[in-house]
Each structure stands twice: as C-alpha cells, then as structure tokens.
C-alpha cells in the first residue's frame, strides 16, 4: 500500500494558490454584482427622438368634427372628411390602435374607449388595405379583465384585430431626447415597433389629476413601470408622451362625455350626451376642442399650453379650419 505524502512546502503553496483563487473569485463576484437592478438596463437603453407615424399634411384637412349620436357613423364621416382612411393607411401596412382600456368596467360607463369605435376603425383600416390591425394598451387594472369587460376584446375578435396584451418582453427602456421624465423608462415598445401607423382612440373625460383625459393623456397607457410616480408631475409626462409619439391620427370620442367623478366614473349619471366625434392629425388641437365638451378652455389645461409652446400642435383649433358635419345614423 502506497502512502500519499505531500511535503509541507507543497501544502503551503497549494493552500496559498487556493486562497488566491477564492479571493479572486470573490473579488470578481463583488465587482460584477449590482444591487440596483435599474442600473442593469442602462446597457439596453434606447435614446430616441420622436417616434413619428404621421402622414404628410393636406391643407385644410387636419381636423374634422362630426355631430351625431352613433359612433360608427360619426367616426366614418370624420375620417372621410379628412380624405378617408386610405390617406392614412396604405395597402400592406400594419396599424396599431391605441385605445384607453384603463379599467375593467362596462362600456356603458364610458371610462374606456367604446367597443363600437374600435370595431369601426378596425373595419376602416382593413378596407383601406391594412395588412394587420393590432390593439395595445397597458391598463391600470388586470389587462385581460380590462379588455374583456370593456368588450374591446370581442369587438377586436369580431373584426379581425389582434390584441397585444402587455407582456414584460414588450416593454423596453427608452430615453426621449430632451425629456426630463422619460429617461430610461419602460415603454410598451414592441407594439410600436411592429407597425407602420399608429391611431389613438381616446375618450373625453373628467380626470381628478389632469383635469381632463383626452388624446394626449391616452398615451399614458404606453408607460410601464411604477408610473404612478408621474402623478406628481402629470402635465409634464403628458407633454413628454406627446413629444415621444407623433401619431398618424387621433380620434377623440365625445359621444358621451364623463363630466364628473373621472377617470373611473361608474355610472351613466356621470355622463353627458354630447354626440361629438373628432378626428385630427393634431392631437393638441383635438384636445383643445375636446376641452370645450367639459366646459373648459385650453388655458385651463397646463399640458395643452406647454405642448403648444413646444410646437407639438395648436390650441387655436379654429385656425386649422376644422371640417364640420352632422350625421343622423345611430349605428
């Protein structure tokens, strides 16, 4: 039987080597360890300028206002007045509809975009030759419940639109050039990346924080993360979102306006029948008119004033010479 002997010298050398290896491994681990996960995303940060989905302007066809009780007929007319959906969506293009699906509430309380509007705009996009229509939002409440209870899911399904429920890998940290708040912040990016055109579908409603929620506030649903921190600076984040996303078109539904207890409301008693549909290539102008449905002036909404100063649109919507029409169909 052979005895495995090791000299004292060898033992000390091996122990020293082992010690150095352990220390080096620990040092490397310590150097690589990052306790703040937020810092880990820096290497994936996308610095962006505006995400521009707009189409070339056509003189005299920037904004339309249609009066009538039925969303499907008023929105069709409003888009037609601006040159039809063919002006905005070309054959083979992918389109993203961004409704307000914030709450898991029935469509009757108008806390969310109405499914009739989703259905009709989806149809118009396909009629114009769209390859695919997607619908996305990052709701306040559970996304699946929101899309189902608002009946937006069924409207989308019936008309061939695909709902992109927010998933973690759809979000990406974005830094907007010149922004103070959208810096390395999670944005619902993948749906925007998939498409050629973006159409905002918003509603006019009272909002305890921002006074009014309309087309510009609707982009709040593209934010991920703990976005409630922006409630302290709501006007600034609304303006920065308008800087980030220049949509192809916004459609602002003022058929039934939530005039009290917004943004959730909860009852038809919070609604006023205003029978108004607005389509606009200028979201500042659309919201400036929308404000009047809440008995507000553009100057009452600081984010509109700021947006105009930054050249994002005009609060003087009359200067755009909006096209007016009245339709009678209830559909």
């Amino acid at each position, binding site marked *: 039987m052979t005895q495995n002997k090791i000299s004292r010298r060898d033992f000390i050398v091996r122990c020293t080597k082992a010690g150095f290896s352990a220390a080096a491994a620990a040092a490397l681990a310590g150097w690589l360890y990052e306790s703040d996960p937020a810092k880990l995303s820096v290497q994936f940060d996308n610095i962006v300028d505006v995400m521009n989905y707009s189409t070339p302007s056509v003189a005299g066809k920037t904004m339309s206002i249609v009066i009538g009780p039925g969303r499907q007929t008023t929105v069709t007319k409003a888009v037609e007045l601006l040159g039809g959906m063919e002006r905005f969506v070309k054959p083979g293009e992918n389109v993203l509809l961004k409704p307000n699906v914030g709450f898991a509430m029935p469509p009757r309380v108008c806390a969310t975009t109405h499914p009739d509007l989703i259905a009709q705009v989806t149809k118009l996009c396909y009629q114009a030759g769209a390859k695919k229509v997607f619908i996305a939002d990052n709701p306040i409440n559970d996304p699946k419940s929101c899309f189902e209870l608002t009946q937006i899911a069924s409207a989308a399904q019936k008309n061939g639109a695909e709902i992109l429920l927010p998933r973690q890998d759809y979000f990406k940290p974005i830094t907007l050039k010149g922004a103070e708040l959208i810096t390395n*912040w999670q944005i619902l990016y993948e749906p925007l990346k998939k498409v050629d055109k973006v159409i905002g579908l918003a509603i006019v409603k009272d909002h305890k924080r921002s006074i009014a929620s309309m087309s510009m506030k609707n982009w709040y649903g593209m934010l991920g993360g703990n976005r409630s921190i922006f409630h302290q600076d709501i006007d600034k984040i609304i303006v920065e979102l308008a800087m980030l996303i220049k949509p192809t078109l916004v459609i602002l539904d003022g058929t039934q306006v939530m005039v009290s207890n917004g943004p959730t409301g909860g009852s038809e008693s919070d609604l006023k029948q205003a029978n108004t549909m607005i389509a606009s290539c200028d979201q500042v102008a659309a919201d400036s008119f929308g404000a009047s449905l809440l008995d507000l002036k553009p100057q009452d909404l600081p984010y509109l004033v700021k947006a105009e100063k930054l050249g994002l649109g005009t609060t003087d919507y009359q200067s755009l010479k909006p096209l007016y029409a009245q339709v009678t169909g209830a559909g």
Partner: protein
Amino acid sequence: MTEEIKRNRTHTAISYLILLVLVLIFIAIIIKQKHYYVPTSPISQKSEPASPKTQFWLSEQLFGIDFKPANEIETYNADNLYEKIDGKADLYLQNGFVSLQCRRYASNSSQEDWAEVYVYDMAKAKNAFAVYSGQMRSRKQLLGWTQFGYKTSDSIYTAAGNYYFEIILSSDSNGLLLTAESAAKRLVDLALKEPFEPFAIHFFPTDNLVTNSFKLIRKDAFGCAEMENIFSAAYSVNGNSLTAFIADTQDGSSAQALFAKYHGFLIENGGTELPHNIDMPGSKAVELFGTTDILFQCKNFFAGVRGSAPIEDLTKLAISFKNSLKNDTK
C-alpha cells in the same frame, strides 16, 4: 512516481472542470441580467390577501344563489390604490383611506350581467361621509332604508359606519339593480354600528334646502387652500342654486382667522367688496367672477352663503343661517 503524475493529472482535470462550471455560472448570470424587467409594473403586482372580516362581507353568497364570485377578493392599500382607480385615488387618500377590497359577482345565467362591489375602509365615519358626499351624482334616487345612500340606473353608493360602498353594474337591468340593492343592505347592516350625524347638519336652515345635498369638503373648498373641513349644503331659491357652508373650527379665534383668510383669498383674486345693509354686524360680502359670498362669524363658527343669485336672496339665506346658529343649543 507514475502514481503521482496520475494524481496530478486528476487534480488538473478537476480544476479545469471547476473553472468550466464557474464560467458557465458567469454566462448564466449575464444572460439572466440581460432579461431583467426593470421597474415593477402594475401587471406584475399582486394585491394583498383580504382580511377575514372582508372575506366574510364579500362572501360567495353576497349576491344570492343566482350569482357567484367571478374573481378572488382584491385588496389595495394607500400605496397601490391608484392601480385600481387611478387618478381618483387622491380623493380617498386625502380623506383617511385605509384599504379597498373589491370583488366581482357574475350571474349564473348570463356572464354579461355582473356587479363589482367596492368596500372602502375610511377609518372614521366622517371620512366615509366626505368621500360619499364628494362624489354625489346629480341624477339619483335616495335609498330610503339607510341614512346616506342613493342609486342611479346602474350603480349604488352608500356610506355606513367607517365604510364607503360602491356597487357598479354591467347594465341598467332592473333585476340586477334590485339584487345589488339587497347586497348593499347586507353590507350596510354589517358595517353600521351606530348612525353618524355630521356635526353641522342641524345648523342648516331647512327652507329651500336641497334634500341630501350635504357635503364635507376636506381640502381646498371653493378653490381656497386654507378652507379645510367645510360642511356645505345646497339650496334652490327662485331657480338659483345657492350654497351655505360652515367651517368645522375649534374656537372663536380660529373661526375669525379662517374668516380673514378666506376673505383675503377672494379679494386677492380680484373680488370686489360689496356694500350691503343687512342686520349682520361683522359680515362681509364679496363678488368674484359673478359669484357672491356673504361671510360671517357666529359663536365659534365661520360660515357663509354663496352663489350667482340676487344679493337679496343670498342675504335672506345668510340671516336665516346665522339665526339658526345663534339659536342652536346642541
């Protein structure tokens, strides 16, 4: 010697193996970190478990045998209330909000008929009354069976004890509304320990008073930051809407101080002092943007009336209000 070489080779192989494992761990960490989702998103947050009391209140049987719960009880606290009600959270947070529990109940026969029940724990009856009165709908029908409650065509709202309840319905079906009203009764019975009387209700004159129009405004009443804890009531006089209000002040000096602050606020914002000859020593009348305020102090109270109405109507209500305060012995 051969054995020693063999042993050394084994040691070397083991060392390489360990190094390989470490490299694999290193690569795995890098890959994992690449896929971090940085801030917490609402979609990833879980609400807290419901308390035993609320589990009992929002039981499976709350809506009777024809309905069943469509989800588990959701619980929200002051940190995540916005995830449920977004911008309306401020109203509750400013009024002593403790927690919200809610649950949706769906009809067994039609999934399209459902109701969502919201139970707000407001810590005090006064807080519950403040959020209840602050959201009063104009088109409503009062619930005859409880002190503070009303229904609309598609919802029910009531304050009982320290709680504020809302039931939101998916349709305006009369059957659904009746079922929801029965559920609301059960909740009120469970929550109501003793009737709550907002301190000022009995001070307000009853002539021309709009029924159930009492409000408790906790902050920024009439746009003035200093006007806190103001009770108000609406009046309808000759077709005009008037508001009478009284501050919940502790003593005469704080009432006087609030009087001065609110009067100063009106003047600083462009208000004009109106001369008026009424039998109310120490009162002041200010007109601002078409609304006239008549302000006065009585005993330990600062009070007033306001509205876009002829000064005579405002004065009459102010005198009646002051007399009511003077004569009050409660």
